[in-house]
């Protein structure tokens, strides 16, 4: 009846530097976002957004990040995301940008959106391919995406095929 409602913000990490991928970890991203909120919204905004703030899901290959926060303060969080300029981990700092893809009320809706988004991204990649072997590579990994019951699952629908998506 009366429960704490959360908002899940799905974003992707964009960076010119390919070494930024090794920096994408939950602690680094969480600290960067918290620091940006502290700068933009001050002590009050930082405390508001930190109540139920975590990095729920992270995919370093695709740069997908799922953040959770309270419903009352998701606007503070979303407005502070453009102010994240770099990720820092292990004394390495790489410039990056966070692009908001979707804001949902549950993890399930964000997952559904991510599946559709990745499907569209794969199609766009296929169109923008310049040489034939990249095309073959993408086609092969699209066809090999399947859930197998017997061994370990060889690739969920929502994960990308591991090729660098630039």
């Amino acid at each position, binding site marked *: 009846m009366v429960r704490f409602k959360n908002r899940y913000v799905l974003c992707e990490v964009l960076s010119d530097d390919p070494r930024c991928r090794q920096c994408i970890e939950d602690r680094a991203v969480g600290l960067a976002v918290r620091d940006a*909120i*502290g*700068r*933009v*919204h*001050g*002590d*009050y*905004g930082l405390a508001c957004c930190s109540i139920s703030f975590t990095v729920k899901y992270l995919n370093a290959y695709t740069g997908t990040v799922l953040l959770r926060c309270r419903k009352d303060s998701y606007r503070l969080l979303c*407005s502070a995301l453009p102010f994240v300029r770099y990720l820092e981990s292990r004394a390495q700092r790489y410039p990056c940008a966070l692009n908001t893809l979707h804001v949902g009320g549950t993890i399930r809706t964000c997952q559904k959106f991510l599946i559709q988004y990745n499907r569209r991204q794969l199609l766009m990649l296929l169109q923008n391919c310049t040489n034939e072997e990249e095309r073959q590579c993408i086609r092969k990994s699209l066809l090999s995406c399947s859930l197998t019951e017997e061994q370990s699952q060889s690739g969920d629908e929502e994960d990308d095929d591991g090729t660098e998506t630039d």
Partner: protein
Amino acid sequence: MAARAEPPPAAFERRVLRSAARHHYLRVRLELPDGGARPNAAQFKQLVVSALRELHGEVGAALPVDVLTYEEKTLSAILRVISSGLVKLWSALTLLGFYQNRRCAFRVLQTSPFLLALSGNSRELVLD
């Protein structure tokens, strides 16, 4: 007999605004119990903006706040702020604790959406 067209009924319009004033005015006094050099007008404004920046970040520091009058002797001033930012400004002034490593406190004496209302203060009224 053709019925004559009646004139259209007079339009009656009533507008109710919850808080129509665009700005709110505050009369504040800065207390420096430990004495020392008093801030001038520019330093006073810098103090207010830095209080907003601490509590509400860059967004708070960008709030349009004006110091309409400032008296250095009594350290009292009249501030004007946009109505949507009154809560942020008041809370930032309340939680400001230090000015140049000296203790300080802001006392809000009067507040009103109309500047004229700040001219009289019934608390200082002396009945003879």
